[in-house]
């Protein structure tokens, strides 16, 4: 299988990550090669214009140009294979080392840090092996270029030992060593080479050795970092997709369609602050004349709250299906939820049973916010009663039950503290009083419009601030029954 085929594969293996990185690094190398080539051309041109001076270049013109041409050709070949071959990194690096080594031969002591460049660039591949290979090649090639430079390149007068008493007479040569060459002062080339290796190469080598160690450790840790990053991004993606499914499961657990009944209109809405939330509402007809509806808020947010929420919702629904009264529903659910509650989670809940024919509402509250009631004449108030503890705290609690008569045209809004404690950018809370005012001002006709009215007001209040808690609303409008209409007529 070729590398390009591997790349199109779906799952990203460890090798694949590093192969992708290698291709990127190859492209960077090609760019660096091109920059070096351009710089060399400029330098060569400037020397020809006598802006710079290099004695060696006159003799090494050909070598200089040859290195340039080979480097251009190799970069071109690498481009042709889209940098997607294993040998590209060696070819490009060889060309770069070649260019730098030729520069070292020509300019000798004028250029000193060239040996470390290939090592530093090799770190980009995050492969300790490659960095070691390149460093060793670099040490060897620059040893050779130093030797060649001693014979053909610029003469380093610092390393030149002349016989005592030698007189150097400057005529019109621009550089001191031209004078030395022009005067044809005899010197021992082997002693010069030994001195160059001693004072120039050895010093450079020792400096390069520290850089070498740094580069090897850099590529080692770069390698580890890439692997960890891969693991992290994979686990983040997994978590994200799991949460998405969890959110769908949770949303599907909420009732989809309100029961069709001419006596009332009912609608609920839940908007979690994170992917999944701890709020919920539920409703269904227990029998032909009794509507069960509940709104609840699990302590905390996110996955733990969502798991507890699913359990609480189904336990409450089971209790309601046994045709129990609201207080009995809460009693039963509380005992069940206390059974395996290691984490001391709890859930506030407000449960009601509405007798649709008469408008008699029985309800019980497990530490939940008081619903807002809007009478037919438009006056609003809280349906305030004494609060019992949330479900899941203590198994031996007995919940109190209350009763209220709904008359036709009455509306009711149950909510969670995500609504009243919604914060705006100035850290102000929406508050229960504001909810009353919003309800008071509402002139909308249907339950759906009324709920949109409340949601819009909360959204307008919060503005740009982040949603901090789950936001849940349950809206009931009692229309009255045919019996009541007959009785009043």
């Amino acid at each position, binding site marked *: 299988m070729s590398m390009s085929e591997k790349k199109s594969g779906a799952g990203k293996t460890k090798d694949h990550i590093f192969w992708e990185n290698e291709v990127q690094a190859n492209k960077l190398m090609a760019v660096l090669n091109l920059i070096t080539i351009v710089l060399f051309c400029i330098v060569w041109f400037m020397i020809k214009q006598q802006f710079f001076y290099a004695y060696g270049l006159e003799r090494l013109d050909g070598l200089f140009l040859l290195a340039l041409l080979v480097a251009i050709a190799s970069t071109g070949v690498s481009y042709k294979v889209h940098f997607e071959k294993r040998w590209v990194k060696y070819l490009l690096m060889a060309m770069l080392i070649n260019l730098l080594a030729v520069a070292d031969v020509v300019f000798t002591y004028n250029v000193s840090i060239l040996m470390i460049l290939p090592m530093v660039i090799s770190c980009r591949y995050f492969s300790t092996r490659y960095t070691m290979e390149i460093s060793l090649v670099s040490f060897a090639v620059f040893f050779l270029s130093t030797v060649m430079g001693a014979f053909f390149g610029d003469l380093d007068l610092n390393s030149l030992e002349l016989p005592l008493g030698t007189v150097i007479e400057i005529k019109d040569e621009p550089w001191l060593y031209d004078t030395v060459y022009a005067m044809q002062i005899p010197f021992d080339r082997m002693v010069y080479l030994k001195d160059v290796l001693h004072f120039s190469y050895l010093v450079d080598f020792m400096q390069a050795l520290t850089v070498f160690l740094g580069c090897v450790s850099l590529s080692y840790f770069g390698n580890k970092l890439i692997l960890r990053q891969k693991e992290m991004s994979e686990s983040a993606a997994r978590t994200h997709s799991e949460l998405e499914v969890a959110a769908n499961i949770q949303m599907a657990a909420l009732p989809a369609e309100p029961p069709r009944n001419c006596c009332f209109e009912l609608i609920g809405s839940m908007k979690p602050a994170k992917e999944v939330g701890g709020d919920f509402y539920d409703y269904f007809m227990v029998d032909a004349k009794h509507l069960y509806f509940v709104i609840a*808020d699990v*302590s*905390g*947010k996110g996955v733990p709250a969502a798991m507890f929420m699913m359990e609480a919702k189904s336990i409450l629904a089971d209790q309601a299906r046994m045709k129990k009264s609201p207080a009995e529903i809460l009693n039963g659910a509380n005992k069940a939820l206390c059974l395996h509650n290691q984490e*001391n*989670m*709890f859930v*506030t809940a407000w449960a009601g049973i509405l007798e649709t024919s008469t408008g008699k509402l029985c309800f019980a509250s*497990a*530490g*939940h*916010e*008081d619903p807002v009631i809007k009478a037919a004449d438009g006056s609003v108030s809280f349906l305030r009663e004494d*609060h*019992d*503890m*949330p479900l899941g*705290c*203590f198994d031996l609690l007995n919940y109190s039950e209350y009763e209220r008569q709904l008359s036709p045209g009455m509306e009711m809004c149950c909510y969670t*503290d995500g609504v009243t404690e919604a914060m705006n950018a100035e850290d102000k809370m929406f508050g229960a009083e504001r909810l009353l005012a919003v309800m008071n001002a509402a002139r909308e006709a249907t339950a759906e419009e009324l709920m949109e009215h409340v949601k819009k007001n909360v959204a307008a209040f919060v503005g740009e601030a982040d949603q901090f808690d789950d936001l849940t609303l349950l809206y009931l409008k009692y229309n009255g029954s045919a019996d009541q209409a007959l009785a009043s007529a």
Partner: protein
Amino acid sequence: MLNVEKNMNGATMEMALIGRLDSVTAPELKEILSECMLDADKLILDFAQLEYLSSAGLRVLLEAYKKMSDRDGMVIRNVNDVIMQVFKSVGFAKILTIE
């Protein structure tokens, strides 16, 4: 931000909570409480300087209350009106010992 000032008085641990007890600071308090409860028989929490209490904070208080109920119990002191309202609205006021 929540600061906790601890003061061990015999077997009674007195703790003053200063700041906010919310979903961020609740785990901190949970840790402090679990350390203290090893050797304290009675726990007194001073809420004089507690500004805010969220449901996550209630959970930690509930946990502490349950653990201390086997011993000499847990008492909450100097509860301000706002937090008292929270206790009342979630029914904690009926259970907790508030002075």
